[in-house]
């Protein structure tokens, strides 16, 4: 399982890539592997929506199961990845790259400190 060093993680198996005050959020390699073939990404929130950490902003439909998308931090959604609408399998193939899910402008940058570092996430996976 790939756990890139430059990211932060959540117990819900999402990652956060910080670019300035914007967080790029997606699911981890472990999450995509556990979900199996992903068919749809369904956002119930859209750009401009203000959300709190832990809010559900959509869902990921795989063949066998469905999983919710949480916002790992509070802030305003800047963009959802519309490129994956027609090709959700990108999330399986490249979860840390083209398969990112959404971008959010942080309202409280200290929330980042509450996320798991790569070592802690690796321990969570029992790796």
């Amino acid at each position, binding site marked *: 399982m790939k756990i890139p060093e430059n990211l932060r993680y959540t117990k819900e198996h999402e990652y956060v890539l910080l670019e300035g005050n914007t967080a790029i959020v997606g699911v981890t390699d472990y999450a995509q*592997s556990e979900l199996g*073939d992903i068919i749809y990404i369904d956002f119930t929130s859209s750009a401009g929506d203000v959300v709190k950490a832990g809010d559900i902003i959509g*869902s990921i439909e795989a063949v066998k199961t469905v999983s919710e998308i949480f916002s790992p931090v509070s802030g305003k959604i800047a963009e959802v990845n519309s490129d994956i609408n027609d090709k959700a399998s990108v999330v399986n193939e490249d979860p840390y790259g083209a398969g990112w899910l959404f971008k959010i402008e942080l309202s409280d940058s200290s929330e980042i400190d509450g996320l798991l570092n790569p070592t802690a996430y690796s321990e969570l996976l029992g790796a």
Partner: protein
Amino acid sequence: MKKTAFNAIHKNFGAKLVEFAGYEMPVQYEGIINEHKAVRESVGVFDVSHMGEVQIHGKDALAFVQKLTTNDVSQLSKGRVQYSSMCLPDGGMVDDLLVYHCGDYFMLVINASNIEKDIKWMKENVFGDVTIKDISDETSLLAVQGRNSLATLQKLTETDLSKIEYYNFEFGKIAGQNVIISHTGYTGEKVCFEIYSSSDVAKSEALWNAIFSAGAEFNIKPIGLGARDTLRLEYAFRLYGNDMDETIHPLEAGLAWITKLDKGTFNGSQAIVKAKEEGLKRKLVGFVVEDKIARHGQDVYAGDIKVGYVASGAPSPMLGKNIGLAYVATGYNKLGSDIEIDVRGRRIKAKIVKTPFL
């Protein structure tokens, strides 16, 4: 957790293993969609050794199986297989099963999750000269399915596989082992075999390896339970636990063709006849849904009226659409009807279509 004889092989293939019916089973290897397509386009191998096999011996075996099951066993002859079901006195389905006519005895193939329950039910119903022998633990079962399954297996046997008609079987040898070669399957593929063999680990692994060597030129692949489900759903094959259970009788499940009400009384027959005379309250229908996958248990609506629930739902890798089966109240079950499904709080449009979907 129990393991089949192929457990080490699954791990070597990198399978994702899950608990199913008390067994550690492969749900997928490389991915459900690719595995699904491998079966439709060439050939795939499923370990379904968790299924139960029960032999029925004795002078009254025919009468017993005839009473126990809904299809007409008197129509079977040696070497033939019959799809059937078992019902409670009230018509509710105990299980669906295959009945093999093996000459002087029958073999019943039952769902893994129902083995204990089914055998208890059989024993409660036994009469006369009947011996029930559970051979589940000593039996491995591989399903080799897809258009290249015959060419793969033919390399390993003297039995002329092209001569075994659909829903027939022969005792024979594959890769030197005594097996039952059955022209049956749960994928909808017309070229399909199920191989019953010894559950000895060394023998089972040797059989698997022989099949994979023979199928290498066809890019033969191991297939998990995930694709088994999507494959069966494209042909609207019912799945016990989803599409059938003890609250559903076979006519509601669309299984009138295996419910021979004119064969004489059998377990559940009176209740089923009565339900038929009163008119069925609901029927299993196929549906297609856009942009969402409907899942088991979700409510089905016609306008504001709740008219049923989803029994099975999955994406169809071959159609690129999402398909499913639902129980819908009589009157709302017409082909072409628009229905709505409550997918996690949102009403999603769906249409009732004919099955099989492919």
